[in-house]
């Protein structure tokens, strides 16, 4: 087992191990889950530390390749191919950290623990496996593997009265999205003429002989909308707030934080570079759909009375920035989009984790019932304030870096959309985030919450971890951007093969990061 495969095979093996433990040994089961996710996190951080900028062939490091299914008469060749470049490196590390945090907050689960931890570990392994795979078959395979536990976890351990409805809605929406994307991926396999699911091979084949225009204009929309549904692209987003509202905390953290990035990653890894002409027809439309996410879902979030629904809608709104960054096809914008993917993963996990902790303590998430909680729960309260401020893009947090880069990058391509998005994000985001802070934490204390206790030392671990990650990347974004940039540049040279006038200028990223840092230290 190589370092990279160990990161996601460990949780999967641990899931098998949990299946073999008698269900009364709850502590052991939890310990196995915590140990596996912790080990996987440590390995992911090691991977991050070992990843250097030295250029390699095809751009992927830590490559691992085996034959899996190879039937020449059917022209079927599916291989096990793993590797990381700057883009999925950040996602894997983020996913592993969030998975550990999710295992930490799973203490709220009080029944059927064995099944729960098995599913949690399968989900973790699936997510990380999907990001590590360089073969589209396994890319899809691992995503499905992670998706199904999501549905079951929402159904069994979910909250609220309409969790059955939410379960079926999220199941049907996400399966539809996945199957549409699968159609696109299979069509890509066939139309490319390369008869391979291997991303590296496909890239080579497309470089040598671009896909015919007809094929591109068929496959790209399949991928865009298939992946779009998975990422809650407006107007296919309605499953997200509902599903996250009903989901158990850890599931919401893992799905909103990590699994949802699968669609964006797929679009960036497969859709944009392999089908530049198909993409150019759709990216402008995509940019306008982003406004639906950023502005419309922001407005919807403003009206929410339930904290989880608010976070769910705001998480949908943040997806708009990533789409906008990808649509810009500029080095700064796409690099920013990748930074937002990572940053939002931490942020979504943090906010859902905090709201889960709040629900566990109070039994409700209706914001009007709260008030003045900051005095009773100073740690959770302070963490919530920080999360909310990160959510509305306060400098110092990683989200600011990414969103600022996206806005810089998209300015040249879509000035109108960028203007509206900036307004939408700053004003609308600030309104609902700050209003939530005021309703929950400030104001007069209510007598029913007088006995509320703050999180215990152990319970603080996941939140400290996630906040630390957000702050670290916020003040030192080069840690990530230096690794992302070469990989994004490689993708953009392919994507801009037809539209040479938009070619990125060298130094764009560094300039933007410097600007971002300058703004980070200046008061607004």
């Amino acid at each position, binding site marked *: 087992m190589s370092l990279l495969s160990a990161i996601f095979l460990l949780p999967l093996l641990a899931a098998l191990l949990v299946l073999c433990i008698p269900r009364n040994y709850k502590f052991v089961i939890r310990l196995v889950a915590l140990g596996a996710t912790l080990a996987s996190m440590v390995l992911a951080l090691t991977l991050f530390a070992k990843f250097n900028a030295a250029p390699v062939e095809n751009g992927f490091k830590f490559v691992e390749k085996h034959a899996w299914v190879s039937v020449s008469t059917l022209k079927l060749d599916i291989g096990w191919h793993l590797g990381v470049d700057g883009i999925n490196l950040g996602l894997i590390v983020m996913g592993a950290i969030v998975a550990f945090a999710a295992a930490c907050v799973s203490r709220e689960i009080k029944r059927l623990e064995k099944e729960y931890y098995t599913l949690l570990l399968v989900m973790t392994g699936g997510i990380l496996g999907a990001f590590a795979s360089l073969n589209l078959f396994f890319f899809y395979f691992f995503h499905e593997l992670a998706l199904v536990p999501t549905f079951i976890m929402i159904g069994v351990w979910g909250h609220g009265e309409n969790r059955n409805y939410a379960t079926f809605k999220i199941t049907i929406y996400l399966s539809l999205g996945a199957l549409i994307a699968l*159609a696109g991926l299979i069509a890509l396999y066939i139309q490319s003429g390369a008869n391979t699911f291997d991303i590296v091979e496909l890239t080579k084949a497309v470089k040598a002989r671009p896909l015919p225009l007809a094929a591109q204009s068929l496959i790209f929309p399949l991928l865009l909308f298939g992946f779009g549904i998975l990422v809650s692209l407006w107007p296919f987003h309605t499953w997200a707030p509902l599903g996250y509202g009903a989901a158990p905390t850890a599931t919401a953290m893992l799905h909103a934080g990590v699994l949802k990035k699968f669609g964006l990653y797929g679009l960036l890894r497969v859709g944009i570079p392999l089908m530049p002409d198909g993409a150019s027809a759709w990216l402008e439309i995509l940019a306008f759909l982003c406004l639906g996410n950023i502005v419309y879902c922001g407005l919807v979030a403003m009206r929410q009375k339930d904290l989880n629904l608010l976070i769910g809608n705001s998480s949908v709104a943040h997806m708009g920035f990533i789409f906008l960054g990808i649509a810009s096809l500029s080095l700064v914008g796409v690099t920013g989009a990748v930074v937002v993917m990572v940053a939002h993963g931490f942020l979504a996990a943090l906010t859902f984790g905090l709201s889960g902790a709040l629900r566990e303590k109070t039994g409700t998430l209706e914001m009007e019932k709260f008030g003045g909680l900051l005095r009773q729960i100073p740690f959770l309260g302070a963490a919530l304030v920080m999360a909310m401020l990160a959510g509305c893009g306060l400098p110092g947090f990683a989200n600011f870096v990414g969103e600022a880069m996206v806005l810089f990058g998209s300015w040249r391509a879509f000035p109108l959309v960028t203007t509206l998005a900036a307004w939408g994000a700053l004003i609308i985001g600030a309104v609902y985030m700050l209003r939530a802070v005021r309703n929950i934490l400030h104001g007069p204390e209510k007598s029913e919450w007088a006995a509320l206790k703050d999180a215990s030392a152990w319970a603080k671990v996941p939140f400290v971890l996630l906040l630390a990650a957000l702050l670290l990347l916020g003040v030192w974004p080069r840690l990530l951007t230096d690794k992302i940039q070469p990989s994004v540049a490689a993708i953009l040279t392919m994507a801009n093969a037809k539209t040479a006038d938009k070619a990125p200028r060298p130094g764009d990223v560094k300039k933007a990061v410097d600007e971002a840092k300058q703004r980070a230290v200046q008061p607004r």
Partner: protein
Amino acid sequence: MNASLIVLELAVVVLGLVVLVQDWFTPAKDRRTLGYGAVLGVAVVLLYSFFAFDGTETLYAFGNAYVLDGLALWFKRFFLLAALLVLIMATEFSDSFESGQSEFFALTLFALAGMMFAASANDFMLLFVSLELITVTFYVLVSFLRRRVESLEAGVKYLILGALSSGFLVYGIALIFGSAGTMNFNELADKLANNAGLAHKQLLMAGVLLVLVGLGFKMAAVPFQIWAPDVYQGSPTPTTAFLSVGSKAAGVVLLMRLLGTAIPDLAFNLEKLLMAMAAGTILYGSLCAIPQRNLKRLLGYSSIASAGYLLLGFAVMNRAGSSAILYYLAGYLFTVLAAFTVIAVVVKEAGAEDISALGGLAQRSPLLATTLTLAMVSLAGIPPLAGFFGKFLLLKAVIAEGVRWHAYYWLFAVAVVGVLISLYYYFNVVKAIYWSKGATDMTPIPVSVPTRLALAVCIAGMLWLGINPDGALELAVEAVKSLKLA
């Protein structure tokens, strides 16, 4: 004449006769041992099939009416394995027959012999005889619980519709013989290839369509599916399991022979028809399964939907499609038999076939709960189980044809709709297992050792075909080599 080729079938028939004879010497309380004896016998035949034949060359017997090639051998082993698992289930289930336990085992073995002959049919005569052997034994097996009205009702329905479809089949064979002058598949193919006029004969096409009716009935494909839900619900559970796996696969192998050996030059004329049948079958099965509360009826509709997915492979008419059919069937065998074995145990325990009987199963028997969950997940086509890779291969074959003709993209879209709907009803079953309220009976369900073994085989099969498909797919590709396909 090479009679030694039918040694496997002969062994199964003899085994059935031995069970019947031995019944005279066995006291009523020991009848179970006969069932285990039959299981053991089938296992021996299955093992022997690996030593006796390797399927690399095509052998003929009985004036070319009987063929033994890779495809035949693949399906024979398939049927033997299915019968093995069904017999284990039947032995467990035999307590609920008031009499005739040994006859149940013997009839299952005779049906198995019919299926094995069907796998080797290279002549319309053998096709008809083997199908009749299967159908007639199933008339009895379906109505075996003769004090239960549902069982009798199922038997009568199966009898009437089965006889009707046999009538169509015979009529179709007569028309084909009348226009082509031969019953043999190879000769028919030669005549079609050498005589362009024959291929355009309306009478021949009408005959082929009527044969398709007979085979569609076996597979429970729309519009010949009407019998399936009632018969599945009313039959004893082992019969239902054997119907849904064995009988369906017999229809599949015969259709494969018909299209791939007998009328390869005409097969493309059936493309649109098969596409329409596939789409209709998937939608009918999936949509009708939504409101079902009876487990066996639900699986009846799900088996109709599965027939639709198998027809996708026939609609594309190439090697990729046919090997995908075989792969899907292999996964289907383990999945469906796992589901029916669990249902047989649960129904015996609870006395009801409603989905709510599964309530609390997770606490009552984790093994049964896990197995049924895996079966449902596999049927729904979710990795890493067999159903996923099978559906993936079928859908990939469909999309590959889309380059030639865009209508295949619509066929894919229909299949996707079917998969989505199926998620709903399969997850309803999973839901009933894990989070239904109101389960009152929480006593553990005992599971006997043979049943445990059968379940272990099914789980291993589902996982193996899902995680390591290479070898099994290679076998499937080898098996369809003898067909004349693109």
